[in-house]
């Protein structure tokens, strides 16, 4: 039985994939990512900054909470842990370490945990922390050892392991050489098991000197450059969050394939998604009595004999010109196959040939894979540099997956950009822009409109200047998703009502009106006549006619049989509306649950065609 199920489910997935042949296909999940926050709980962390600035501890908790809620939305299967060191009290699995407090062990984040972290925020949070954990001696070695145990206690397959240390003390052991040495040993043990250690150094009076101690603790940056180590300490929550977020998300290649310049000249590249549409997750079915999730199984069987159908006993069909055309299942796949996966260079074009409105899919990002073909990075880098200099893009034919038809893409060069804090803002590489085929462009019939005079244009310019702002791509939250999670949060935590969400993509009309003041009226006086009201719809009158028309149509959905037969014969059923077709189906005893027009037509034709 098992084979049947797996088979049919697989087919489902295939079909879905084909439906939305998105560039952001499902990630290949090979194991769980896990992230441990190791937070300094010494007294220094709780010192508030000047001007009512939050303490380092408060800032850290804020950042941690954000990661928790983001993970719930973006990748709830990742494991998170929160551990404090330099505490008075101790709490860890075997209670073998002093001054280490495991607040959350490695697990998927949930509503309860978010609440726990919330409790540690603000003045009340500092108080709670003092009560439950207190501040005491520091042994980073013990803390790291304890964290190592957290990783090894997990029985699941782990893929990416990361540890973030939050502290404002550059010499945690106060110059105790032995303790420093122990900590270094433990850190290198951890790194050997594949854990990446990051330092989130926080502001302290006199500056944070990494070279004192932490340079030996943290993992070397990926690219062997000096970059990363010399990061200035964070003194702003925003910076800290940015830095945490940059580290917290593991970049996963959507695909690794070759960029082929010509026969025998191919480099290895990875495809990454810098932006994918986040959606509300799908619902899970639960058993009513126990609220436990149920599994669904789909099977295909023969309607008459009731026997399960093998893949070989199923074929695929489409109807065209009243004829059913049947193909084998693997033929259906074979049709879509043009070539092997990969990018194939066609040529180069000046950047201005990339039309703004030729947009069909979000872009993806291309970066070389030196691990697979040595020399890839060098050639890639040369291409990137020259394309950038000459302001051209590379046109490629792209087959993203096996048995996918080709699309053409523009490889647009992107230079690396680094901010003042030496953090990377944009990575070096090519952005892949998907280009439309002839079928994807629609022919429009643009209405003829009068041109505005310069006076009118100038007035509008004044309006525009009043409403200028600096666009940031991360400034807008998706209200639909946020509301959904607030609702869930409220239900999970038995809250009376969900937290309010602010709809950030709602125009702030009061502010706009205030800023524009009289400009609006001045502009209107210039372009609109006195009695013109753009809000009133001249279509209103027509609407009533239309609605009456609709009512009439509804009244006579039934068609005489001979008329219908004639239409079947002439193949003009398409002229009828869906309700009429449904009625006709009923009339001729065609049982169908279809709602699509074409399906209804097919059903009728099958029944009525001679």
């Amino acid at each position, binding site marked *: 039985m098992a084979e049947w199920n797996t088979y049919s489910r697989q087919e489902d997935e295939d079909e879905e994939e084909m439906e939305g042949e998105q560039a952001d296909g499902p990630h290949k999940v090979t194991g769980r990512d896990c992230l441990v926050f190791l937070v300094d709980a010494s007294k220094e962390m709780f010192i508030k900054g000047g001007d009512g600035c939050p303490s380092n501890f408060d800032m850290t908790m804020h950042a941690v909470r954000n990661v928790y809620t983001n993970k719930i939305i973006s990748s709830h299967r990742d494991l998170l842990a929160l551990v404090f060191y330099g505490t008075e009290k101790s709490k860890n699995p075997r209670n073998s370490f002093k001054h280490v407090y495991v607040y959350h062990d490695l697990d998927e984040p949930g509503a309860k945990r978010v609440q726990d972290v919330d409790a540690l925020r603000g003045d009340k949070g500092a108080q709670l922390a003092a009560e439950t954990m207190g501040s005491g001696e520091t042994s980073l070695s013990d803390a790291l050892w304890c964290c190592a145990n957290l990783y090894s206690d997990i029985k699941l397959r782990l893929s990416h392991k990361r540890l973030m240390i939050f502290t404002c003390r550059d010499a945690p052991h106060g110059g105790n050489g032995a303790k420093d040495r122990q900590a270094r040993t433990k850190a290198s043990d951890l790194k050997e098991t594949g854990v990446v250690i990051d330092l989130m150094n926080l502001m302290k009076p006199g500056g944070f000197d990494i070279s004192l101690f932490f340079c030996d603790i943290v993992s070397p940056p990926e690219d062997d450059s000096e970059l990363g180590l010399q990061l200035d300490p964070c003194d702003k929550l925003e910076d800290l969050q940015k830095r945490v977020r940059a580290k917290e998300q593991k970049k996963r290649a959507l695909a690794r394939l070759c960029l082929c310049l010509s026969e025998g000249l191919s480099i290895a590249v990875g495809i990454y998604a810098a932006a994918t549409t986040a959606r509300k997750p799908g619902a899970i079915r639960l058993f009513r009595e126990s609220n436990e999730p*149920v599994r669904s199984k789909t099977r295909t069987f023969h309607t008459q004999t009731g026997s399960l159908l093998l893949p070989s006993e199923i074929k695929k069909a489409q109807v065209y010109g009243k004829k059913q055309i049947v193909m084998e299942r693997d033929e259906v796949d074979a049709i879509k196959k043009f070539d092997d996966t990969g990018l194939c260079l066609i040529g180069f074009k000046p950047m201005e040939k990339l039309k703004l409105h030729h947009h069909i899919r979000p872009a993806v990002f291309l970066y070389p894979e030196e691990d697979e*073909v040595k020399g890839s990075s060098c050639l890639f880098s040369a291409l990137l540099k020259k394309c950038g200099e000459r302001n051209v893009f590379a*046109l490629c034919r792209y087959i993203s997956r096996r048995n996918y038809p080709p699309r053409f893409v523009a490889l647009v060069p992107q230079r690396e950009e680094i901010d003042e804090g030496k953090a990377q803002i944009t*990575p070096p590489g090519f952005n892949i822009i998907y280009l439309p085929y002839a079928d994807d462009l*629609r022919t429009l019939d*643009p209405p003829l409109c009068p041109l*505005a005079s310069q006076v009118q244009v100038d007035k509008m310019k004044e309006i525009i200047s009043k409403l200028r702002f600096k666009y940031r791509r991360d400034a807008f939250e998706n209200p639909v998703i946020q*509301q959904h999670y607030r609702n869930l949060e409220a239900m999970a935590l038995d809250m009376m009502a969900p937290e309010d969400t602010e709809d950030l993509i709602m125009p702030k009309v009061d502010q706009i009106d205030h800023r524009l003041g009289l400009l609006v009226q001045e502009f209107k006086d210039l372009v609109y006549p006195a009695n013109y009201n753009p809000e009133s719809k001249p279509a209103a009158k027509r609407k009533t006619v239309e609605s009456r028309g609709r009512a009439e149509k509804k009244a006579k959905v039934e068609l005489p049989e001979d008329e219908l037969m004639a239409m079947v014969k002439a193949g*003009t059923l398409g002229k009828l509306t869906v309700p009429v077709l449904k009625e006709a189906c009923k009339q001729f005893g065609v049982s169908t649950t279809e709602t699509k027009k074409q399906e209804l037509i097919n059903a009728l034709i099958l029944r009525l065609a001679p």
Partner: protein
Amino acid sequence: MAKAKSALILCMDVGFSMSNSAPGEESHFESAKKVLQKFVQRQVFAESKDELALVLFGTDSTSNPLAQDGQYQNITVHRDLMIPDFELLEEIENQVHPESQQADWLDALVVCMDLIKKATNGKNYDRCNISLLTDLSTQTDSDHLDVIIKNLKKADTTLQFFLPFPAEEDREDGDGSGPGHSGLGKGLSTQQKNGLDMVKHIMLSLDEEDGLDEIYTLRNAVEQLCMFKRIERRPMAWPCQLTIGTSLSIRIVGFKAVTEEKLKKTWTTVDAQSHQKEDVRRETIYCLDDDNETEVQKDDTIQGFRYGSDIVPFSKVDQEQMKYKHDGKCFAVLGFTKKNMIERHYFMGNQSIKIFAAKDDQHAGVAFSSLVHALDELDMVAIVRYAYDRRSNPQVGAAFPCIKQHYECLVYVQLPFMEDLRHLTFPSLDNKKFTPSDTQLSAVDSLIDSMMLVEEDENGEQRDIFKVHHIPNPAFQRHFQCLHHRAVSPGTPLPPIEPWLKAVLDMPEIINERCQAPLAELKKVFPLTVVENKKKPKTAAQIFGKDSEQPDAKKANEDDEEQEFNLADISEGSVTSVGSVDPTRDFCTLIKSKALPFGEVCQQLIHRIEQFLGNKNTQYYMKSITCIQAFREQSVKLENADLYNSYLQSLKGSIPNRGLEVFWDLLVQDAVSLISKDEVGGSSVSKDEASQFLLAEEKKEEEAAASTAQDTEDVDDLLDMM
């Protein structure tokens, strides 16, 4: 509202002269028929609502409404105006033949016009067209030419001519005048010359300027028609108001301008034997995640969502009530920003929308125009909240000004939400290890030079030689090619990708030639070595060569059988005996794997066949026959005919006793006979015997019936039944 559709009449000359041809060349009739077929195919697959009629002239018989008193003879209205289908294609294939009469093409034109006139009575076509395919070799009566032209004009009917020769010498496109191609003047009869003059006269009277453009040669038409029609959708207007604050609004209308088009039809699943989709049902069941996989009724399940590690039961009703709600349709400005703040690679969604001022509203037009120009002059864009309607989720997006010669608009594209973003960081490439040398950089430079797809011609105008947005989606072209192939020649393997399509997807030949030298240089200065990666051998294999582990679809085509067995192995695990679900497959798998001795496997198969025959049901008969066919095939393959022959002979013997005559008839129909010496050397059956084996039975039966018929009347009925 009336749908835009056309009435098209195809009027083809099938007369005597059309079957003429130069030696080694296709007859005009064949060329014209091809044009006809290609054209109808395109219409069928485009599911166009255009109605089509077929009129043949030069036919032996006469069948048209105007035929009276010896007028309009030898003209047949083969099919009245209706939406074309495969039936029409089959009729063209099988019923349109060269015939031996000749008819006046002007008469045929009149019949067509009459057809349109009658059809347009009460129906609304927005275009009427008559296409004449003829060699003009008939005597024409030009007396009524002026009346005809007048009527064509009056009815607003357009004309197209498809001729075997070009209308003008210099009109022969490109290399059209190949060897043996009948050029103008050469080989044209007086009638044809007169005919051509008349055609020109008509066409120029209908359209003084471009009339002659509608005269095509058959040959060019075939070439142009091989591409399937691109998918066309009528743009849907989205009327709305662009608002800035509470008191400034402009009436606008939006249209989807670019979006990834999908095929309208999806595959349905049908039963392999009956080809009926009603025979296949899919069912989803739910079960608990316990050891027994206890099944749960759908009604006993509720909906829940994951919140991290928690699963929160959340009914549909609650969800509906608590979900984010908004006021519906809107296009509201949040503010304005510099255009360069919007990065192309952060465009989201899968479409771009063009926004225009509302139709027939001068004032909206002026207001809208001021906005577009102001944005353009300031090099800014509007950031807007866009919601299609109440049910759809609101978006944030950018509206770019776009000023063209004939129109002005805003181009709207969706921008990301915070939740959509992944912050990617990658190691810098300004690393000593990867920094390219000057030689390497100049090699890349000359590669770019040689591969520029946009060139300036002598007039200083840019010419793009590879316009992606002019290429038809190859997936659709291939899809229709295969569907068409399967529809007209079922039972044959799918054809390869058409050469023209392959060429369209490839680098232009001129570039290919030019870039060879720079590429060779590039190869020289950039050493590339494939890293043997033990960890991921599969990925490496996928990149650098065909992956032998995965079935290749192309290979599958060539070696169907092989493929099927592989699939079977994967989906079924190992086969240990011939089961009843798919005995044929089990049988073949077992023989292939040599898990059991041949005799043993055959015995198992025979056992199943006998079981099926016991059921006395047509479906089981069919299954038995496929078993026997497989039995035969494998026996031939393994050159061991004895087991099969002896079983078939004994089976034949037992037919009358077991009342399996119906089954035997089926077997005879399928011509499943004994294996002869010719096929397998070891067989004791001669070729004649094998062919007589089934036949003889019939004869014998007939004889038997004949002999018994004399005795009793009843047997007659029995025979009738058979």
